[in-house]
């Protein structure tokens, strides 16, 4: 294991940022720490980097106990949301910084920085100041700077959080490709489930300072451990008190086993898909159906349909405690 975090606790005053967090991150993997803000994911990343000291627990990096090591001696690359560019230094000198600290020969530094700038497509900007770069370029510079010292692990704290949607998507794809090229164990923090599903091999879902579930994007989507994970990773609705994905609900024209009667409140067409809002036993449910089936059922507000979860419907492993005696 590249990173082994074991029973970490961290409080800021009364606020519990991390509550007995244990996670292993495999060598060469690309892992996302996913969760709502304030869920402890950034704190965990900073604990791994040594920028934050845990109250208890241990951090092992590449088999060495790093818990007491200062950030300087952990050999981790850290990329910040707001780039943390050394704004008084040129792009070249930003990237060279870690190598200069290590007192590498000038020729080697020059060559290595040149390679890295090519890797992040900034070779033409070596003499610019960070203020003369766009946000996306600054973040790529920060990445090159972190990679320059050949870190054991690369940690990225909401790396695309400050960028606009278009650049975000570009950089996402680019990070995935970069990782396939460089193979350094990478952990990034995000609150965007789409970003996590798109980029990561492995996702660690965190909320309230605790780990909710760890798994591949597919595992998390198909076998969510609980209501929280299920609702965080995709759209959900509640039928008879149980969470279900809106596209896992079937609408039927007539009564059938397991189906309950519902009245249509509203039919919203969103291109190919149709969003049908229902009232079932006094509570709101929404269903995602195709345009075809909407037309076949002649859905319009006021009509009566029967609704049930499909046999293959995804359910959380642990249903919510508030579930009343419900049908499946």
């Amino acid at each position: 294991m590249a990173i082994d975090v074991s029973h970490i606790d961290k409080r800021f005053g009364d606020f519990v940022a991390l509550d007995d967090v244990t996670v292993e991150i495999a060598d060469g993997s690309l892992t996302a720490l996913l969760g709502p803000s304030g869920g402890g994911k950034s704190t965990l990343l900073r604990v791994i980097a040594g920028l934050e000291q845990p109250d208890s627990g241990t951090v092992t990096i590449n088999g060495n106990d790093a818990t007491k090591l200062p950030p300087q001696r952990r050999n981790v690359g850290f990329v910040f949301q707001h780039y943390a560019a050394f704004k008084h230094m040129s792009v070249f000198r930003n990237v060279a910084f870690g190598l200069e600290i290590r007192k590498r020969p000038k020729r080697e530094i020059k060559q290595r920085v040149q390679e890295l700038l090519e890797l992040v497509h900034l070779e033409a900007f070596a003499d610019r100041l960070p203020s003369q770069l766009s946000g996306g370029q600054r973040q790529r510079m920060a990445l090159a700077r972190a990679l320059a010292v050949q870190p054991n692990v690369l940690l990225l704290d909401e790396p695309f959080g400050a960028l606009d949607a278009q650049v975000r998507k570009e950089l996402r794809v680019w990070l995935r490709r970069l990782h396939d090229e460089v193979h350094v164990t990478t952990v990034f923090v995000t609150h965007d489930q789409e970003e996590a599903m798109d980029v990561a091999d492995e996702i660690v879902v965190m909320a309230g300072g605790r780990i909710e579930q760890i798994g591949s994007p597919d595992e998390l989507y198909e076998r969510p451990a609980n209501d929280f994970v299920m609702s965080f990773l995709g759209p959900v609705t509640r039928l008879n008190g149980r969470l279900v994905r809106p596209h896992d609900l079937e609408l039927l024209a007539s009564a059938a086993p397991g189906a309950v009667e519902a009245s249509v409140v509203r039919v919203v067409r969103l291109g190919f898909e149709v969003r049908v809002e229902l009232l079932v036993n006094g509570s709101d449910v929404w269903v995602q159906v195709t345009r075809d089936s909407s037309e076949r059922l002649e859905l319009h507000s006021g009509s009566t349909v029967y609704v049930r979860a499909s046999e293959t419907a995804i359910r959380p492993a642990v249903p919510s405690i508030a579930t009343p005696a419900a049908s499946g």
Partner: protein
Amino acid sequence: MPPAPRPGSAPGQRTRAGAGTALGLGFATLYMSIIVLLPLSAIVWKAHQAGWSGFWADVTTPEAWSTMKLTILLSIAVALTNIVMGTLIAWVLVRDSFPGKRVMDVLIDLPFALPTIVAGLVLLTLYGPTSPIHVTLAYTRPGVFVALLFVTLPFCVRTVQPVLIELDRDMEEAAASLGASRITIFRRIVLPNLMPAILAGGALSFARALSEYGSTVLISGNIPFKTQVASVHIFNQIENDNVTGAAAVATVLLGVSLIVLLAIGVIQRWSVRR
């Protein structure tokens, strides 16, 4: 990849200076001229009433020469001390937390807010011939130095403090994770970013020390060739009806201030480019 935007290269940005801007510029220039340039020109003109040779004779009298040398050297020493101590105090105020921090923060401005003659009286009481702590600095050069430090204390603190508050802590953490020691982080990351503010504070301290009158007039004793500072010398010349002599020394001080301000401007640009 699209090319990075160059600062200030937006098309048409500079050509769009409208009538409002021109009017504003006109007023600003007129105001500056009346308040600053006109009196300064008057002094320079006065100093040259007796021609270059008269001017030269006025500034090279042994007394004028000595007083200017003392004032300029003291001002340099004051600026350098403030650069170190002011930065240190600003650092402590921003980065550390300790009991009495708010009190300290308020106290910093006191020497500046105090009427300077009161500051002089305070120092004379403490360091005068009847010093309660038995340290007599009155009528000595160290006494003048202390008085100048007293009144210039806030300059570096107050220029560095806001920059330090705004300084991106992520930069320091990034440097730490790249392996930089605390000293290296301070030297290579923090200090270059503070440098413009430190230099500005140093320049203000220098200018203030060069012109200081009230706080030094009591403690210095105004002993010619020993503790007499330039502003006191100028005052004495006027009292003795030697207006051109006073204007000559004043012109030299003006020139020195101007050179220091220009030099600091150049250094600031250079340090930003580097």
